[in-house]
């Protein structure tokens, strides 16, 4: 279970094949809301990686040591969203006190992340049954899935911000200005990422 190859598979899968934004449709609001400038996209990306890592590790512990032993899995949604909201608040306060520079760069994005479906999504995916192996992720796998999903999200966000900065002054039909043209851009990017879905690493082992 813990072999390095499965870990590599999870990483590649989370970044490219099942990219959170472009193939799973999670976290679209920040994806379109914060992708107007590369600098703010980078800040948002860092904050998402950070929160997703923490959220996936905490939610795994809570699910496997509290919810599962007492057979109250149906409370998962309520518990996870509260834990994530609490964690984000805590992280925000801790950052403000101990690392004001980091707080300056991530601070404004943190409250937005609480209601980001990508964060709750990664917690739920980690505790759901895994499609390839048929069992939930182990702790290390959950942690890795959290980090790599965050990296995948940031990658998509940065690419999108780069494209939008370049096309900002392009002549676009009036009706498509703003969001619709951003959707079309995202669609083209998703089309490109679709190419990764044929990717099958180490076919003899897994996949």
């Amino acid at each position, binding site marked *: 279970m813990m072999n390095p190859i499965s870990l590599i598979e999870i990483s590649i899968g989370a970044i490219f094949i099942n990219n959170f934004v*472009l*193939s*799973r*449709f*999670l*976290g*679209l*609001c920040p994806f*379109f809301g914060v992708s107007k400038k590369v600098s703010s996209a980078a800040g948002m990306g860092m904050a998402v990686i950070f929160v997703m890592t923490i959220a996936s590790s905490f939610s795994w512990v809570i699910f496997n040591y509290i919810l599962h032993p007492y057979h109250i899995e*149906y*409370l*998962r*949604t*309520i518990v996870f*969203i*509260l834990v994530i*909201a609490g964690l984000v608040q805590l992280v925000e306060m801790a950052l403000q006190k101990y690392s004001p520079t980091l707080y300056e760069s991530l601070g404004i994005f943190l409250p937005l992340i*609480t*209601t*980001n*479906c990508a964060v*709750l*999504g990664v917690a*739920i*995916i980690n505790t*759901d049954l895994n499609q390839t192996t048929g069992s939930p992720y182990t702790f290390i796998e959950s942690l890795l899935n959290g980090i790599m999903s965050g990296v995948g999200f940031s990658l998509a966000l940065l690419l999108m911000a780069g494209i939008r900065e370049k096309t900002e002054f392009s002549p676009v*039909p*009036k*009706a*498509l200005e703003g*969001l*619709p*043209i951003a*959707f*079309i851009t*995202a*669609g*083209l990017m*998703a*089309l490109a*990422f*679709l190419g990764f879905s044929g990717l099958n690493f180490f076919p003899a082992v897994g996949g």
Partner: protein
Amino acid sequence: MMIGQEIKRGIIDENPILVLALGLCPSLAVSTSVQNGFGMGMAATFVLTCSNVIISLLRKVIPDKVRIPCFIVIIAMFVTIVQLVLKAYLPALDKQLGIFVPLIVVNCIILGRAEAYASRNNVFKSLIDGLVMGVGFTFALCILSVIREILGSNKLLGFKFVPGFQPMTVFILAPGGFFTIAFVMGVVRYIGNRKRGVRR
């Protein structure tokens, strides 16, 4: 307050997906077939209406500082109810919607209406607002899913649509979702612009 006017506001003027661009994640992910889209719309409408009513009832009790966590708990409660009901009575739909049923909790429409409307208005108004916004959401989901189902699998509600038409599978996949919403949104804006007399 005119009911007809309110309905027009929810479906056309302030349509949550097509005009306000809220709740994008579920709307793109589940609009692959009309059944899924309609099911998702109904589930979200139920949660939206119930949470609007409860939040509006409790609006004078909830302290201002912790209102967001309170709203989230109320919403999460109704989402859990929906989850259990779907699992018990509509297991096939539950499987199709998958992770997006628990994710109704972070749907920006619901929290947005709680914050912007239900926490400031009386119960009856909030109930109507929840219903109207929910209908608007369902309506937009249905438009998206009708287009995607016809183009992507050449079916409508599971039945064959046009004989001899080769379906474009890409419309069922992720890119098709983005393209569809882009063009539907474009059409809505075009019509809106024409109405307001902005022409180009």
